[in-house]
Structure formats: structure tokens, C-alpha cells
């Protein structure tokens, strides 16, 4: 497709640079090679995720139990929201390719409308991802971290449809925080370079007391046996918490998360964050191109190739999301 923008009167003269063996302009080709290198970066991250997952294959968090929320609704709906996000991104890819198509027919107005819709789709997606992060950081049930760094979660066996099913219980459901007094460490009273963070919601002594007072509550470990996380017996639960419990954790951050291996949280934040950053920069570039379209820059050039190039980048962002979706939420 010969949509070269800048020509120096060298067309046809093979020895003056007029030769285009790949039949694509310089800019478009370079966009493709940039996408290639970016694809390698992303697959490096995803392969590293795979490495860590294979390394801890027996105790990796089950994604279905981590991402179960949709905005404004309570309850357990795994996959639904992220499927919506995927659809939004594919939709914005479609409006982008429609913009490119309208550009080929030099229809300025249509290009502008489709670019605008693409930008809106991108903003909805980034907003959804922000919400997803916020939910993940906030957490749900809370858990206890052991001295060895493992995560112990709580739940009880209840009858659902005549079958005994393990149902998660939040720490706050069976624990009440006892009154404690403590002198806050201040820089002027001790090591000036050490600061003390806030105390967690519940102390370990509170959790132990709460667990003893509620005979039905059991502990679930990280270990996966036959596709399910291993639930300890009542005696083993009490022993695990009393002997090994170090602190309570709520939600996720880079250092620890209540769903299991901290690496899961690290990779989630890093890979979806890097992808979200790509979406964000894609939106910015789309906005710039949108204004160029509206101002008629490409109409004067009689070529909408810039729309095509930014379109390639935008589709690539969609392409990466397809893989992130599979490896974080499905597999």
C-alpha cells in the first residue's frame, strides 16, 4: 500500500531510494518494528510470571477467587467485569479500524467521530483497571501471614444445596480487637531513620481468641490438593494460627497479599500497570491525532496515514490485553 507521505521526487528511481521492497512507508514499518520489540518486552514479563508460577505451582492463588467483584453489586461474580473490560477494548479497536478505513476514503468527519469513540473506550478501560486495582488493594476477607511468609485464610463448612461447601469468613466476622496500649515510636525518641507504620486492624492475640471462641471456623492453607486449597482440621487450624501466625494482612500490596504468594500481587501490579501505562499513552497519542484530524492537517496532506500508525499501536495494546486476560484470569 503506497501511502508514503513525504516524497522527494525520487519515485521510480530505484537507486535514489525510490524502491520500497516491503511496500510500506518508513513510518509504518518502524511502527511495526517498535510493536515487535514491545511485544518481546511484554512476553518477557508474562514468561517471568509463568516462571514464578511454575516454581510455586502447588500454592499459586486461584484467580477466580481473587477477582470476583463488579462495581455497584455485591456477591461473587468471577470473570464478569474483566470480560466487560476485554469487550470494551475490542470495541475501541473496532472504532479505531473504522477510523482508519474512513481515512482511506478521506472522510474527515467520520475519522473524527470514530477517533473520539476510540478515546472514550480507552478512558473507560483505564478507569475500569483503576477500579480493579483499588478492589485488589483493598482486599476482602483478610488473612494471617505466618512466620515463614505463607498465608492462612479462614472459612467454615456450610451446607449449600445439600452439599458441604467451604465458605470464606472474614477475620472481622469472628474477631474483635481488644484494647491495647503502645508507645508510638517517634524519630526523636529513638533511631531517627526508623519510622513506625500504623498497627494492623487486629493483633494476633485477638485472632487467636476469636478463633477459639468460634468452633466452626477453620483455616485454609495455600497448598493446592486436587485443584482445591487445603483446609485444615479444627485442631490443626488452632495450632497453625497459634504457633505460626505473625500478623494479619488485609488486601494486597507489593510486599504481601491476603490471597497468597506476594509474587502474584507483584506481577499483577507490574504487568497490568505496564499495560495500563500503554493504554494511557495510547489515549494521549489518540487525542493528539484526533485534534490533527479536526484541524484538517491530514485533509491538507490528502493522507490519513498517521491515523493508521497510531491505529497500529492501539490494536497492539488490545492484542497484549488478550494475552494478559488469558494468563492472569483464565489459565
Amino acid at each position, binding site marked *: 500500500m503506497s501511502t508514503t507521505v513525504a516524497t522527494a521526487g525520487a519515485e521510480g528511481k530505484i537507486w535514489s531510494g525510490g524502491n520500497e521492497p516491503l511496500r510500506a512507508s518508513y513510518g509504518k514499518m518502524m511502527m511495526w518494528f517498535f510493536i*515487535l520489540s514491545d511485544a518481546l518486552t511484554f512476553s518477557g514479563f508474562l514468561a517471568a510470571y509463568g516462571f514464578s508460577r511454575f516454581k510455586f505451582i502447588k500454592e499459586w492463588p486461584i484467580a477466580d477467587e481473587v477477582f470476583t467483584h463488579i462495581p455497584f453489586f455485591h456477591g461473587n461474580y468471577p470473570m464478569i467485569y474483566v470480560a466487560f473490560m*476485554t469487550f470494551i477494548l475490542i*470495541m475501541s479497536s473496532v472504532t479505531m479500524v473504522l477510523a482508519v478505513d474512513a481515512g482511506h476514503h478521506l472522510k474527515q468527519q467520520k475519522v473524527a467521530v470514530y477517533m473520539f469513540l476510540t478515546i472514550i473506550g480507552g478512558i473507560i478501560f483505564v478507569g475500569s483497571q483503576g477500579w480493579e486495582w483499588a478492589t485488589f488493594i483493598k482486599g476482602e476477607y483478610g488473612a494471617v501471614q505466618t512466620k515463614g511468609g505463607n498465608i492462612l485464610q479462614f472459612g467454615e463448612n456450610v451446607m449449600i444445596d445439600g452439599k458441604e461447601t467451604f465458605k470464606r469468613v472474614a477475620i472481622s466476622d469472628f474477631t474483635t480487637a481488644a484494647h491495647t496500649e503502645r508507645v508510638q515510636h517517634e524519630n526523636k525518641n529513638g533511631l531517627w531513620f526508623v519510622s513506625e507504620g500504623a498497627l494492623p486492624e487486629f493483633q494476633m492475640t485477638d485472632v487467636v481468641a476469636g478463633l477459639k471462641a468460634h468452633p466452626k471456623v477453620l483455616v485454609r492453607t495455600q497448598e493446592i490438593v486436587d485443584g482445591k486449597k487445603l483446609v485444615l482440621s479444627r485442631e490443626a487450624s488452632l495450632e497453625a494460627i497459634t504457633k505460626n501466625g505473625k500478623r494479619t494482612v488485609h488486601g494486597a500490596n507489593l510486599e504481601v497479599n491476603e490471597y497468597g504468594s506476594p509474587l502474584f500481587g507483584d506481577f499483577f501490579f507490574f504487568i497490568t500497570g505496564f499495560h495500563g501505562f500503554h493504554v494511557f499513552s495510547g489515549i494521549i497519542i489518540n487525542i493528539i491525532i484526533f485534534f490533527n484530524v479536526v484541524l484538517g492537517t491530514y485533509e491538507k496532506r490528502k493522507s490519513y496515514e498517521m491515523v493508521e500508525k497510531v491505529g497500529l499501536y492501539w*490494536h497492539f495494546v488490545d492484542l497484549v490485553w*488478550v494475552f494478559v486476560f488469558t494468563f492472569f484470569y483464565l489459565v
Partner: protein
Amino acid sequence: MAHEHKLAIFRGLLKFKSNTQKIWGVLIFLTIITAIEVVLGIYKPEILESQVFGMKALNWIFIILTLVKAYYIAWDFMHMRDEASGLRRAVVWTAVFLISYMIFILLQEGGYVFNVYDNGFIKKDF
């Protein structure tokens, strides 16, 4: 300006009248695939939990469906179908080769580390 698009997908099984029509057709196809993935992801049929080539059958299905989606995004949305074969090969083969190599190396090594951990830190018990 002439912009020829190849308007057939599924190896010519489905032909579209215009490029715009093809875009909507591909969207429908991608949406169906995503819907299948989501339904399988929620219900996780018992029959697909069995192991095939060292991984759950369900996971193989997810990965294959993802590659199918990636193919149609690159080929029809990014117009790879219409590019010169030289450009297509330069981009696609490079990526396929390097990524497969990286995945093989890292997953192999991850499995090895797991085995060493699992086996009481013994590499090989003679």
C-alpha cells in the same frame, strides 16, 4: 487512492463485500470467542479438567483461543493480511521464534526449581 483489502477470512470460507463489513464480522467472531472463554472460565466443566500434555485440557483451550484472537486482531484489525509477505514474515516469525524460545526456557527452569524445592532440595538422588 487504491487501498486493496483482502476481504475473505477463514481461508476464503467467508467473504465480505466491503472492508467495513469485514471489520464487523471479525468483531462478532472475536466476541463469540471471548464469550466461550468466559463461560468456560466460570463453569469449568469437569471433563476438561483432565491433564493433556502436562497441562489441563481447559488451559490448552484457553491458550489456543487466545492465539486465534491474536491472529485475527493482527491480520484484520492491523491489516497484516494486506501487507507484503516480507514485512509480515519479518515481524511475525521473529516474534514467534523469540517468544517460543523464551517461554520454553523460563517454564522449563521454573518446573525444575519447583522439583528441587519439592524434593527436599535434592537435585538428583542417585
